[in-house]
């Protein structure tokens, strides 16, 4: 049996750990890692060909969390599809909502009021913080530094409490909608955000003092899982992975959307393209996110938080008692939803994992004809092979952690 046939057989039949040397004179063997494995961050399955401890081939097998969300969007109204897309990348739900809303707004030619833009930008940056904190924690955990996850989740809890205050939920919010945000910020939001802004820089220092100069952590990450800039671009990698390899590109700065044009921040870059560089880029990004959140907090304008066009937005509750028109609009929006002009549009945002895109097609009806989401994890997972081949199995774990894949986004 040839190697490829064996890999094919393992792929078809192999469940759980599976080991077989395919040639008696050859030490190489094929091992199945995952889909249920503590360090594959969900249901990522890898087919590994090993020579002793050295990885000679690595093949990611995905689809274990495929729930057909793109198909489900086609059955929803334009407004309610937000509740589907937010479930894709469950660690960064606001970005999914934001990119979908931006794409639909382009088709509708709908203006978002300044306050809506600021709220979106602020909450997206808080989401970047909470997402990177999970990455920091799990990366530490995968390297054997168990305390990292406690520290990371401690601050994440503070940010999630703020989400709960604003949206009522800790994940799958459905908060950002075409036209703005679903609801205005609640009373006392500014103190809560101010607390986070004051808290975070010191805590990020704490994380860095925990891991950045830790000799064991350095040993496990420096020079491990190297990805060159050319490889990153060829494989379509984006976000912290590409920036750690020296690709100077950030959609927030280079093609600004929402209120990013008014924010001042820098884009951290790495050179080496190894696991440590990616870790450092994420840490620096967290500091920049805090700066953006602070600017949004200070500059938060008043006014409407969403576009008040009654054709796309439910009228305020008070109006329903006095205005017949408001009742009609309310009835139409609740039963049928709004229609979107025929056409196609695409939008991209910089999610914590890279370039998150949404491509929507409308046939003039009340639900999306097609809603495709380009999830950064889905593309980034392909970089695992060049990162891990030639390294040890233990280094492969470090590489997975540094890609920070979210399988909900990979499989959609």
């Amino acid at each position, binding site marked *: 049996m040839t190697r490829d046939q064996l890999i094919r057989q393992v792929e078809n039949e192999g469940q759980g750990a599976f080991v077989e040397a395919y040639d008696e004179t050859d030490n190489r063997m094929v091992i199945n890692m995952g889909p249920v494995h503590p360090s594959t961050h969900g249901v990522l399955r890898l087919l590994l060909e090993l020579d002793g401890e050295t990885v000679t081939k690595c093949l990611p097998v*995905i689809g274990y969390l495929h729930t*057909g969300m793109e198909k489900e969007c086609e059955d929803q109204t334009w407004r309610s599809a937000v509740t589907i897309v937010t479930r894709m990348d469950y660690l960064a739900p606001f970005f999914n909502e934001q990119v979908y809303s931006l794409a639909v707004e382009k088709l509708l030619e709908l203006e978002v009021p300044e306050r809506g833009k600021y709220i979106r930008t602020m909450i997206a940056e808080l989401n970047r913080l909470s997402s990177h904190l999970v990455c920091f924690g799990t990366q530490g955990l995968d390297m054997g530094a168990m305390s990292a996850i406690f520290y990371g989740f401690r601050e994440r809890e503070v940010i999630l409490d703020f989400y709960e205050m604003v949206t009522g939920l800790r994940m799958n919010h459905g908060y950002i909608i075409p036209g703005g945000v679903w609801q205005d910020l609640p009373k006392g939001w500014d103190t809560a955000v101010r607390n986070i802004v004051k808290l975070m820089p010191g805590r990020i220092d704490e994380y860095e003092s925990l891991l950045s100069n830790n000799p064991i952590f350095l040993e496990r990450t420096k020079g491990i899982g190297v990805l060159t800039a050319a490889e990153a671009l*060829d494989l379509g990698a984006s976000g912290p992975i590409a920036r750690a390899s020296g690709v100077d590109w950030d959609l927030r700065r280079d*093609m600004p959307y929402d209120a990013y044009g008014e924010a001042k921040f820098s884009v951290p870059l790495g050179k080496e393209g190894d696991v440590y560089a990616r870790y450092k880029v994420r840490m620096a990004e967290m500091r920049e996110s805090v700066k953006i959140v602070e600017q949004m907090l200070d500059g938060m304008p008043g006014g409407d938080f969403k576009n008040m066009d009654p054709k796309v937005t439910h009228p305020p509750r008070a109006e329903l008692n006095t205005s017949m028109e408001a009742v009609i609009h309310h009835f139409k929006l609740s039963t049928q939803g709004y229609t979107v002009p025929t056409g196609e549009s695409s939008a991209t945002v910089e999610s914590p994992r890279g*370039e998150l895109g949404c491509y929507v*097609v409308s046939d003039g009806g009340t639900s999306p004809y*097609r809603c495709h989401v*380009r999830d950064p994890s889905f593309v980034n997972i*392909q970089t695992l092979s060049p990162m891990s081949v030639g390294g040890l199995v233990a280094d492969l774990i470090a590489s997975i952690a540094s890609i920070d894949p979210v399988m909900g986004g990979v*499989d959609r």
Partner: protein
Amino acid sequence: MIDVELRGDEWLARATELKESGWWLSDLCGLDRRDLGFADRFGVVTQFLHRERRERQIVHIAAAGEPPTVPSICSLWSGANFFEREAFDLFGIHFEGHPNLTRIMMPDEWEGHPLRKDYGVGKVEVDFVPQPFLQIQGLGQSPNSKEAMEKVDDFGQTEDGQRRGDSW
């Protein structure tokens, strides 16, 4: 709504040209245009990004024939690999020259292509087979073995009317 679309045989040349002038493949997905009034039912939608010019463009390719076929661009951008496998899996669009054109999301033995418009949501019934629960009779016998499953009827009950797992 789609102004220009390329034929399959023009696509590879155009993609090469785009790559040479600095465009980066950002996205590739299939599109079933059954209700949109096109000569060819299936299409491939690609998006490109130019980092220096800070521009984006969408390129449409018609997938003609049965099965619908377009050439693969994996040789130009390795990152197209997963995108093309996804379009193959969910739309049944074939990519000529792809190194490993297999299903990526759905199981290998799956029939049909879920994102096609004639494949409705909920059309395929999902069998909720009750799983025999913690019923290991003999050493080495799996609770999910075929024999164990056969003893349970559709409502998850054994012949004597006991629900599996109740004893637990």
